[in-house]
């Protein structure tokens, strides 16, 4: 922790003097002909809550298993606190893992499960007892200490798995889909609990998940992966607001992608010609586009406004008719078909009861958004 006067924001990845805890250097992992990880370089810093996000088969689990020591890279180096850990077997690493299946030992009580790792270390019996009790308290499991894993609920089992992997106070904790087996409500509670525990213990967490909401909620930084490569590594808000590719924009949340050609208008402003006979769209972009270059305008549905009449002074306004309405309770997503045949999604909060909804199927409507609402992407 830096001096109090400095910004309280936690962002060691922006500090060039900060030494990363984990360092992947040009790591490649092949299983036969299949390339699971392709020449990947990544730094993870101490006390980070780092999320690996991607569809199944993208290599995120392989990456984690290499950190745990269950897989060795085919090429490249993995460093932990500056030391190459590739030749170190899993039982000698200061890294612990929480398994997706929890992997609790069914023949041992909750107490013995948590003590399992401690008993393999040169720790005295009273110290082990104190540590186990501390872990039980941290995860609110004191009452269940003497039960067997099959005698407790799924949520409690999840906390036992967490307590067991934290007991040895690892430098790095790996969590493989830690909330995959929980129902949605419990998952949300657990996410905050996990963040609390991470803050209290100061351990570096690396979490693997395919649930983008989960990654956005818990992580300090998110790495979006696809086919063994990192597509974007950034904070959750940057990933959402400024995706670097159509893939990331599409993977995280809901998005409208409009393909067109760019034409510079000066001052980061571009015109996007997207359909014959339709007025060009206006969008700002930090990246430069040459005139006539193909571009994709990515715009989130909640940033598109819907109205019955043409709004005055909007940067972009298009007309269409409502094709479909997805009612989500708090929100409604309108699928609007434009005259050119393109379908644009617009999302509004349901501030009124459903019976008083302003629009219904087949209604002609106007969609509008500002020039800064979307992102222009190359591919």
């Amino acid at each position, binding site marked *: 922790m830096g001096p109090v006067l400095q910004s309280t924001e936690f962002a060691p990845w922006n500090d060039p003097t900060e030494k990363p805890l984990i360092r992947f250097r040009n790591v490649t992992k092949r299983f036969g002909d299949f390339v699971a990880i392709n020449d990947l370089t990544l730094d993870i810093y101490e006390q980070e809550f780092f999320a690996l996000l991607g569809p199944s088969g993208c290599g995120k689990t392989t990456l984690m298993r290499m950190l*745990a*020591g*269950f897989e060795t890279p085919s090429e490249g180096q993995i460093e932990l606190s500056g030391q190459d850990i590739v030749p170190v*077997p*899993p*039982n000698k690493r200061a*890294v*612990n*893992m929480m*398994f*997706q*299946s929890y*992997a609790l*030992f*069914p*023949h041992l009580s909750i107490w013995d499960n948590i003590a*399992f*790792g401690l008993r*393999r*270390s040169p720790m005295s019996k009273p110290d082990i007892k104190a540590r186990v009790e501390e872990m039980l308290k941290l995860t609110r499991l004191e009452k269940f200490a003497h039960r067997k894993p*099959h005698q407790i609920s799924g949520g409690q089992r999840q906390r036992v798995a967490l307590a*067991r*992997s934290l007991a*040895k106070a690892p430098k790095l904790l790996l969590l493989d889909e830690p909330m995959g087996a929980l129902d949605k409500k419990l998952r949300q509670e657990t996410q905050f609990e996990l963040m609390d525990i991470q803050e209290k213990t100061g351990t570096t967490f690396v979490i693997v998940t395919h649930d983008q909401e989960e990654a956005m909620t818990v992580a300090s930084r998110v790495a979006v992966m696809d086919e063994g490569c990192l597509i974007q590594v950034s904070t959750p808000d940057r990933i959402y607001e400024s995706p670097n590719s159509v893939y990331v924009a599409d993977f995280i949340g809901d998005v409208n992608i409009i393909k067109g050609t760019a034409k510079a208008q000066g001052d980061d402003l571009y015109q996007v010609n997207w359909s014959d006979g339709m007025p060009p769209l206006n969008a700002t972009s930090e990246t430069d586009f040459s005139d006539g270059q193909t571009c994709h305008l990515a715009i989130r549905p909640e940033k598109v406004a819907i109205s019955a009449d043409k709004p005055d002074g909007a940067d972009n306004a298009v007309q269409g008719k409502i094709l479909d309405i997805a009612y989500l309770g708090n929100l409604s997503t309108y699928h609007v078909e434009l005259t050119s045949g393109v379908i644009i999604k617009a999302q509004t909060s349901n501030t009124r009861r459903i019976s008083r909804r302003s629009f219904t199927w087949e209604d002609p409507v106007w969609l509008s958004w500002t020039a800064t609402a979307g992102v222009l992407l190359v591919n």
Partner: protein
Amino acid sequence: MRRFVLIAVPYAWLVALFLVPFLIVLKISLSDTALAIPPYVPKFEWAEGIMAFLRQLDFENFIFLTEDNLYWKAYLSSLQIATISTILTLMVGYPIAYGMARAPAEWRPTLMMLIILPFWTSFLIRVYAWMGILSQEGFLNQFLLWTGIINEPLTIINTNTAVYIGIVYTYLPFMILPIYAALDRMDGSLIEAAEDLGCSRLMAFWLVTIPLSKNGIIAGSFLVFIPALGEFVIPSLLGGSRTLMIGKVLWEEFFSNRDWPVASAVAVILLLILVVPIVLFQRNQQKQAEAES
């Protein structure tokens, strides 16, 4: 009503084919030997009534078993042979079951088939085959002499060693299958978790794999121990004159001595000895079923 019928059928089966024969054997064991057909008295006469009949029964044969040291030596020797062969079968069977459980999934049905395959031939023929393998001029000795490992043929047939080989061979599938079933169910990530928490491979095996296959080990051991204790064919075909097993004694009492009452007494005592492991086995199965539910 339907439930009653469903339950009644197996119980009727057990009563007719297990309880009634057992009561007949028990009755014979309390009778006296005689030169008659069948070779024992008393026979039940309706005219004399049931009390007169019961009065003629006594425990004479059981007392005789304690007086001649042949019998308790045979019981002890059977227990010893059954125990040692169970341990040997476990030592051979566990690695096989472990290997099967670790084999690629597409291989497992084939491996399972290979374990069950010997059952397709008669048990008796397979034991005779072992006589051919183990005898003085048998395949094993010829092979070892040919390779030059030994200069003199080994005497294996008609010794306890041959009996152990026979029992281990015969009962191996009964050991392998329950252990394999236990290991196959085991979640592979448990071993990884143990290693992750600081265990070496060997430690993880000892602290996780063995305890989790405990029920399979217990079930397999009883499935070998119980029939091995009363085994008759293997000791009489492969064992020597000095191999003392209660199954053999029983057979000799029945067929050589024609002393049906003493033979029955031997059988009743054997059954009582077997009740202990059978009850333990049942309890293990029940505990396992409870743990799984």
